[in-house]
């Protein structure tokens, strides 16, 4: 199978499989984050569990990091190869006549998501790693004895510039998913009688999940 992943089709499978993994992760991330709106105590509890459970921290988290890095690196490698496949460009090319903007600009939406992710890591992930593994504080508590997760989250969404930045990031995530969701299924060979329904579900997923994240950011900005 080593030859398989060196082929053009094998790389499509690899991109699709990492995409499936990331799309499931996004749902899980959203399910936890939306608790911060409806039930802050439950949000604190589950955040503490996810942040301190060894299986999550040392099992799932490295796999997630690998999935994210792999998807981006492979995406950029494929883009370079694909650009090389047409060394002389058309003087006039009407790309909109046969394909959607989203499908033709996955590298741009993906690139903006990467920038957003770097900011997101600086905002949340790096401070979390610093608190837990450098300062050694695994308690998850503030000096007053309350859990810190909800407080940290709401504090981050006070500045309007950060809320705006996150909203733009999720718009690009939506644009990426509008093509990426159904594209991943096509890449693994799933094109059958269920494809039409799957495309509809994919569009709903690509709009509702990022919209939900935007709602969370706006909710905390206007309520704190």
């Amino acid at each position, binding site marked *: *199978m080593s*030859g*398989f992943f060196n*082929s*053009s*089709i*094998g*790389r*499509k*499978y690899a991109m699709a499989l990492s995409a499936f993994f990331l799309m499931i992760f996004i749902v899980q991330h959203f399910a936890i984050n939306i608790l911060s709106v409806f039930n802050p105590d439950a949000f604190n509890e589950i955040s503490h569990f996810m942040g301190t459970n060894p299986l999550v921290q040392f099992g799932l988290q490295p796999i997630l990091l690998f999935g994210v890095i792999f998807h981006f690196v492979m995406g950029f490698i*494929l883009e370079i*190869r*694909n650009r*090389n*496949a*047409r*060394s*002389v*460009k*058309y*003087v*006039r*090319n*009407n*790309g909109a*006549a*046969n*394909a*959607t903007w989203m*499908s*033709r600009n*996955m590298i741009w939406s993906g690139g903006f998501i990467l920038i957003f992710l770097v900011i997101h890591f600086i905002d949340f992930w790096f401070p979390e790693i610093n608190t837990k593994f450098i300062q050694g504080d695994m308690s998850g508590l503030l000096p007053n004895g309350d859990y810190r997760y909800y407080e940290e989250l709401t504090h981050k969404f006070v500045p309007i510039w950060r809320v705006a930045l996150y909203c733009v990031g999720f718009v690009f995530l939506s644009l990426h998913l509008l*093509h990426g969701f*159904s*594209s991943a299924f*096509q*890449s*693994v*060979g*799933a*094109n059958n009688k269920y494809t039409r329904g799957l495309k509809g579900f994919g569009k709903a997923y690509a709009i509702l999940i990022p919209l939900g994240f935007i709602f969370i950011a706006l909710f905390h900005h206007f309520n704190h």
Partner: protein
Amino acid sequence: MNLTLKIWRQNGSQDKGRMVDYQVSDISKDMSFLEMMDVLNEQIINKGEEPVAFDHDCREGICGMCSMHINGEAHGPDKGITTCQLHMRSFKDGDTITIEPFRAKAFPVIKDLVVDRSSFERIQQAGGYISVNTSGNTQDANAIPIDKHAADKAMDAATCIGCGACVASCKNASAMLFVGAKVSQYALLPQGQVEAVDRVKNMVAQMDLEGFGNCTNTGACEVECPKGISLENIARLNREYFKANVKG
């Protein structure tokens, strides 16, 4: 109709190439696009200049030879047709029409609008066939019962004329619709099963070797294909390739 034509002129594969403007007048809306090109070439020849080289053969949408990229689209603005089936009624008097060759690293320009699509031939030679014993004991193909649904899909895939519009339209210059169609037409039939594993592995290996890009499922190939070859064939190619690699 009076038209301005912006045409890619390239004197051989080593020439850098450039766009050249031409004016044509009194073009009938009933002419085919290639007939309009014939009028232009007569005009150029009468001036003692080199006519525009372009591919054509049957001029009825069967052979897949004509290969122009017109106003930013393979085979022009109309869907489901080849360049030879495009008529001048699709344009307006005074229009400027941009005409370029199909662009892909695997389709090098030979001259002007003529490109070398022999990479498709090499992909076919790598596995796009079935081996049949023709020693005199050949079984009648109709003696093997084939599900109507599968036969229809195989026939749909077999309508690919290998014109290269899929490659020309794809932003990645990917040939997967062509290879998908050629693999599918055999994968769906019992006669194609014997060599199924080697066929898909060899054809994909040759496709990659030729320098075509990776498919990113934009669907542009399906939209521009003059024969309406479906993306289902690319999905089938992906499945067949995966199965072949699992089998070894």
